[in-house]
């Protein structure tokens, strides 16, 4: 009994803190982080930002992969398949196309150097 008392945590014991609360903490902080980060992105790269953010939202893939596990009935499997396929398109396509766009922004460096070389 005494032993139990000493191991009691004064504020919040693990078991008690529901995931809802944990998730809300994370959500609160992540929203703020997101706002601070995005407001710093210059208009020039808003289109790549949009498609890049889009690719990140494909994170659902991580959730979808768990749906491939056994224990899901057929309808669940079908939904899992759809989820995985669509999220993968979003991730693969999104990052690729963003990279294609940003590569164009980057390429100027080489060009300018050669320009300097010319003059």
């Amino acid at each position, binding site marked *: 009994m005494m032993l139990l008392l000493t191991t009691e945590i004064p504020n919040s014991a693990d078991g008690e803190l529901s995931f809802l609360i944990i998730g809300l903490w994370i959500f609160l902080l992540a929203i703020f982080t997101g706002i601070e980060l995005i407001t710093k992105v210059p208009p020039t790269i808003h289109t*790549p930002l949009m498609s890049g953010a889009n690719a990140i939202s494909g994170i659902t893939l*991580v959730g979808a992969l768990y749906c*491939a596990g056994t224990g899901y009935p057929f309808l*669940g499997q079908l939904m899992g398949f759809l*989820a995985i*396929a669509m999220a993968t398109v979003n991730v693969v396509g999104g990052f690729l196309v963003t990279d294609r766009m940003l590569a164009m922004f980057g390429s100027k460096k080489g060009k300018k150097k050669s320009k300097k070389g010319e003059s």
Partner: protein
Amino acid sequence: MGALAFLSLQSVELVYMAAAFLFILGLKRLSGVKTARSGNALASLGMALAIAATLVRVGTEVHWWVLAGGVGLGTVVGIVLAVRVQMTGMPELVAFFNGLGGAASACVALAEIGKFVGGDTGGASVFGVRGADFAVAVVLSILIGAVTLSGSLIAFGKLAGKVNRNRFGPIGGRLLNVLLALLALWMCHLAGFSDGSGGLVFSYHLILAAVALVLGVGLVVPIGGADMPVVISLLNSYSGLAACATGFVLHNNLLIIAGSLVGASGLILTRIMCKAMNRSLVNVLFATFGEEDSSAKDEGYSNVKAATAEEAAPILDAATSVIICPGYGMAVAQAQHKVRELASILEKGGCEVSYAIHPVAGRMPGHMNVLLAEADVPYEQLFDLDQINGEFQNTDVAIVLGANDVCNPAAEKDPNSPIAGMPVLSVWDAQTVFVIKRSLSAGYAGIKNELFDLDNTLMCFGDGKKFVDELITELKDQ
């Protein structure tokens, strides 16, 4: 396996943390043109890590057709779409991907419900067995995800010019939308909180998804085509929030974080665009703006002076400073490479060339920047509205290339204009203004542009690419 699974859970969480870290770092690096590409690479590395860790955790007891089939199909389609798309098609592609992201979240939630009803629930409700937070998170995932899917597809169709209001008949009427929304809420309640056999509960969720799909259509159909970028950005934010909700369903912090980042990004871009157009989000979403038949507006001009390339070239040749103001028409004509060529020729002749980039020129924030970057225009020559608006008065020629609304003086002069108060490029301050477009027809906002009537304006009718090409030929000849 208990202890092993526990360890594995902790280490998977650590990998997820690393992934979240990389996402944040990636977005941070997006704040500079030079570091942006590496930022995207970091974010995709984070995604790869998260996926790898998940695969390890999921293990080999899986339905392979689901896992391998889904990943394989998705990868192929993703690569093909990403490689094939042209820069002008970017807004459509983003809309399409976005829809898929939302749909995936909804499907994950549905799969969880499938698993739920696959077990023996004893006829209890989702809420009864799994608690309120699970029930709410699931229905939110489905609702937001499905609205994002159908809304994005409509936006896609509108951008591609394939969808218009009439195609959908009464769907999108204000009353119908309210009814649909109420129906969706009711289905949310039934799906999450009513007792019933597994089959019944699953059907409720499917019906909820169906209603949400129709609602997505109904919400986006009445919005004017010119406002699609705002809609896409908002839906982008929704797809993030759907991922967030899925995170609450699966108790996965990484999904919550990544989802929130995307949600914030979409919201901020939406706000930026609304500000640049001097309109409120409510006005964008619920006022049917710019969807009127815009072709009928090419009347009422009294002082139009047209010029051919032959006539325009000498003026350009004599100019010592030129500002190019591109708009959506440049994207349509894919004239960016020709524009760059024209600028090089002018620069060789000792003329100073800069580009004025309006924040909502084109059909996406930053649209013009991407196109001009594709054509290797140095970004030092690109100036935004505030930087360049004072310069027009010292400029010999302003070339308005396929832009219209973004240099409409009505925004400043006519307080009753639909675009009143939107900051515009004051091209009319330049000595001479060339307006290159195919006709006198209106831009996306569907309104008349007094600029075409001004004394110092020359209308250069023709396709953007073709006309610039003619200018180049003329200049080379001289």
